[in-house]
C-alpha cells in the first residue's frame, strides 16, 4: 500500500510510511481500515470519541476569566500509534536499565555519595540543586526504590532511533489518558484491534497497587494504601480519582490525614484509621509544611517525620527530582555505566551544559539551531526553540543565558517523528513523542503501552498539553506486524487457497 498524495513527508521519520512511500508492515491493517472508512465515518467516530471523554468527565478545568469555570477535554486523536514487537523489546530493556541505575544513583546520593567522590558527577550540581532534599539523607527506602512510578519521555529522531528526552521521576502524570485512550480505541477500531494482536495495558492499576504494597511489605502484613491528591482543582484530579477507583483505595486530601505520635491516620466516619503507604500526587514542596514549604495547605503536618520513623511510606520518595534535573540528565549514560557497568541501551539526546564556558560559547554561537531549556522548568515553559524563534526572542534568551548560565542546557533541534492524525477531517502528519510508564518496587515492570503525545499545530514540536498538545493511544504489537489475513495478494488470488 502507498502513501496518499495529500500526506506530505518531511525530514522527520514517519511512523506509518517509509521514506519510499510504502506503508510500514505494522501499519498495514490500520491503513487499510482507514481507507475503507472514508472521511465522513471518521469524523463521526471522532465526535463519538470526544463525547465519551466529556461524559466520563475526563477533563481538565480552566478556572478564572469571568465566566463560570470551563471544562475541556484534552484533544484525543482517533488513530492509534503502533509500535512493532522488536522496537518495543529494546525500549523495555532500555527503560528498565535506566530506572535501575537511577534508583541506585538516588540511593547513593542520599547515602554515601560515592559517585560524587569518584568525580563522575560534579558535587555542586547535585547538592546545590533545589530538588536535592537533605532531609532524605541516610533514610531507609525499601528495595532502594526511590522512584516507584516513572514516566520517561522518548522521542524518535530522523533516523528512526529512539532517544530519551527526559526522565520524569517526581509525580509523572498521564497514565489515565493511556488507559482511557485504550478503552476508546477498542471501541473505535474493534476489528483492527483484535487482528493486530495488541498487548494489554489494563493491568496497570493492579500492578501499581502491588508495587505500592511491596514498599511496606516487610513490616505491615496488609498495608493500607491511599492516593494523596491536592484536590479537585488540580488539573490531574481526574487521574487521581481514576487510579484510586481502579485500585480500590481511598483518595485522600491533606485535610483527611492526621499525624499522631509519628503514625499517620485518616479520618473515617468511624474514627481514625492507620495509613501505611501514601501514593502522593502532591509535589515534594507541599507534602509537609513542617519539613518543606511552610505555607503549604495541601500536605499533612508531621508526615515526613512519620516517614523518617519508618511508620509510613511516601511514594515516590521525596527528593527524586535531583535525578531528573535537566542538567543531571546529561550524566545519565555515565550513571548507568558507573552502577551497572553497561552501556545505555537507549541513548540520550546530545546535551550542552551552559555551566561549562566552552559549551556556553558554542550554544551562544548556534542559538538558531538549538533548543535551549531552563533547568528547573517543565511543561514546555522557559524554553527557546531556536529555529522557530524570532531574532529578537533569540537575543533576549542570549542575555538570560549569559546572566545565569548554570540554569540552562541546550540540545540540537530534533525533528520528532510524525504520525497520522485526523485534523479537521483530513489525515495529516503531526509530531509525536512517547511516554511509557515504568513501575518499580520489589521489581521493575514496564507497561506495554504508552501515552503518545501529539503536537496538534502543524509543524509544531511542542507536545505538552499546556501548550496545545493532544494525545493518542499507543499499540504495542506482540509481533512485527503482518498484512491483513483476508486481503487477496496482488494477483487477486488468496495466498492460502493457492497452496
Amino acid at each position, binding site marked *: 500500500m502507498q502513501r496518499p498524495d495529500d500526506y506530505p513527508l518531511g525530514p522527520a521519520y514517519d511512523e506509518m510510511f517509509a521514506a519510499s512511500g510504502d506503508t510500514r508492515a505494522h501499519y498495514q491493517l490500520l491503513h487499510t481500515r482507514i481507507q475503507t472508512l472514508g472521511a465522513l465515518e471518521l469524523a463521526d467516530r471522532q465526535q463519538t470519541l470526544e463525547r465519551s471523554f466529556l*461524559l466520563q468527565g475526563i477533563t481538565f478545568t480552566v478556572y478564572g476569566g469571568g465566566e463560570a469555570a470551563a471544562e475541556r477535554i484534552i484533544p484525543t486523536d482517533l488513530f492509534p500509534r503502533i509500535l512493532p514487537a522488536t522496537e518495543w523489546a529494546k525500549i523495555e530493556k532500555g527503560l528498565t536499565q535506566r530506572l535501575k541505575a537511577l534508583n541506585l544513583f538516588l540511593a547513593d546520593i542520599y547515602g554515601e555519595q560515592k559517585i560524587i567522590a569518584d568525580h563522575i558527577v560534579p558535587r555542586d550540581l547535585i547538592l546545590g540543586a533545589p530538588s536535592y532534599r537533605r532531609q532524605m539523607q541516610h533514610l531507609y527506602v525499601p528495595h532502594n526504590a526511590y522512584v516507584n512510578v516513572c514516566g520517561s519521555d522518548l522521542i524518535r529522531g530522523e533516523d528512526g532511533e529512539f532517544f530519551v528526552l527526559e526522565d520524569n521521576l517526581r509525580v509523572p502524570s498521564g497514565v489515565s489518558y493511556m488507559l482511557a485512550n485504550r478503552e476508546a480505541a477498542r471501541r473505535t477500531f474493534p476489528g483492527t484491534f483484535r487482528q493486530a494482536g495488541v498487548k494489554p495495558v489494563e493491568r496497570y492499576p493492579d500492578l501499581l497497587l502491588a508495587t505500592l504494597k511491596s514498599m511496606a511489605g516487610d513490616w505491615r502484613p496488609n498495608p493500607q494504601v491511599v492516593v494523596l491528591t491536592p484536590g479537585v482543582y488540580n488539573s490531574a484530579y481526574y487521574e487521581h480519582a481514576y487510579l484510586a477507583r481502579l485500585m480500590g483505595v481511598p483518595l485522600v486530601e491533606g485535610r483527611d490525614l492526621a499525624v499522631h505520635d509519628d503514625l499517620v491516620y485518616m479520618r473515617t466516619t468511624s474514627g481514625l484509621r492507620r495509613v501505611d503507604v501514601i501514593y502522593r500526587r502532591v509535589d515534594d514542596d507541599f507534602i509537609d509544611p513542617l519539613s518543606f514549604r511552610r505555607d503549604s495547605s495541601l500536605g499533612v503536618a508531621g508526615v515526613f517525620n512519620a516517614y523518617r520513623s519508618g511508620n509510613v511510606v511516601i511514594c515516590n520518595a521525596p527528593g527524586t527530582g535531583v535525578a531528573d534535573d535537566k542538567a543531571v540528565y546529561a550524566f545519565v549514560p555515565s550513571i548507568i555505566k558507573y552502577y551497572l557497568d553497561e552501556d545505555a541501551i537507549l541513548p540520550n539526546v546530545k546535551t550542552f551544559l551552559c555551566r561549562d564556558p566552552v559549551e556556553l560559547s558554542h550554544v551562544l554561537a548556534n542559538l538558531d539551531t538549538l533548543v535551549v531549556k531552563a533547568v528547573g522548568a517543565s511543561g514546555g515553559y522557559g524554553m527557546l526553540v531556536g529555529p522557530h524563534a524570532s531574532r529578537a526572542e533569540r537575543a533576549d534568551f542570549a542575555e538570560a543565558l549569559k546572566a545565569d548560565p548554570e540554569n540552562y542546557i541546550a540540545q540540537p533541534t530534533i525533528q520528532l517523528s510524525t504520525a497520522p492524525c485526523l485534523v479537521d477531517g483530513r489525515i495529516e502528519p503531526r509530531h509525536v513523542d512517547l511516554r511509557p510508564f515504568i513501575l518499580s518496587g520489589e521489581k521493575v515492570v514496564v507497561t506495554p503501552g504508552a501515552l503518545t503525545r501529539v503536537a496538534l499545530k502543524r509543524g509544531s514540536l511542542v507536545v505538552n498539553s499546556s501548550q496545545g498538545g493532544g494525545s493518542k493511544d499507543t499499540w504495542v504489537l506482540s509481533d512485527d506486524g503482518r498484512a491483513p489475513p483476508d486481503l487477496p495478494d496482488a494477483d487477486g488470488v488468496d495466498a492460502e487457497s493457492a497452496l
Partner: protein
Amino acid sequence: MMLARVADSLYWVGRYVERAEHLSRLSAVMLNATLDRTEAGAQAAQLARASIGDPESASLADPFDAARALVLDRERGGSVVLSLSGARENARQVRDQITTESWERLNLLYLRATGGRAERDFDADAPDFLQGIIADLHLFKGAADATMSHGEGWRFMLIGVHLERAQLIARLMRVCFSGAQGRVIDDHLALVSILRMACALEPYLRVYTADLHPRYILEFLLFDEEFPRSIRYSTARIEEHLTQLSKGREIGRGDPLRLAGRLNARLTYTDVEDVEATGASAILNSVEAECSAIHQAMYETFVAYPLETRLPA
C-alpha cells in the same frame, strides 16, 4: 470504613439532587397552573413561591419569568441549576466512590442544564425541559440504587435525600395549611396543584379517591407509611439508615440516631386529629427544626469530631 469527607460529600449529593428535583417540579406545576388564568392557578403559583421563600417581587410578577429564574438563575442560591452544580461538584470530589453508571447520569444532566443551549431549550418548551430534568434525576437515583453497593456511602446519600425531602415537604405543607396565607384553601384546582408539587396526585387518589380535602392531604403527606414523599416515610428511612451506620457506636445524648428515632416515633404515633386540634404549624415547625438538629448532629458525629477522642485502641 469510609473517609469522613467522602461521607459528607455523598450526603450533600443526596440533598442537592433532591432539592433540584423538588424545585423543578414546583416550577413545572407553577407554569402549568397559570395557563388557566384562574384564581386557583394564581394562588397555586403564589403558594409554590412562598414555600421556597420567594415572595412575589414586582420585577418577576410574571409566573414564567419567576419559574425561569428559579430554574436557570446562577446568581441565586437555590436555583435548579445551582443545585445541580452543587450535586455534581460534590460527586466530582468523591468520584472514586461513585459508580461510573451513576456518575455519567449526573454529569450528563449537569452538562445539559448548564450548557449553552439550556436557556433556548427552556424558552422553547419549558414543561418539556423540566420533565427532562426530573426524568434524568430519577435515572440518576435509579442508577445509584442499581449499581452502588448499599453500604455506608449509599446510606449517607439517602439520608441527605430524605432529610432534604422531609424539610421541603414540611415547608410546603406549612405554607398551604397552617393559615399563614390568611385564608383556607379549598378550591379543587388549587388542591390538585398542591398534590402535584409533592408528586402525590396519583398515589393520593388511589387512597382517598378524588375527594380532595386539606385534612386528607395533610394526613397523606404527613403520615402515610408507603408513599415515598410523605414525611413519615422519610423519617423512617432516616432512622433505618442511621441505625445501620451506628452499629458498634455508643449512642449518647444528642446522638443523631436518638434524634431521628424520636422524630420518627412522633410521626408514627400522632394522628391527624391531634394535628387538627393544635394546628398544623406546630408539628410542621418541629419537623423542620428536628431535621436541622439531625443534620447538625450528623456532622459533629461523623465528620468534624475531635481527633483525640477517636484514636484507634
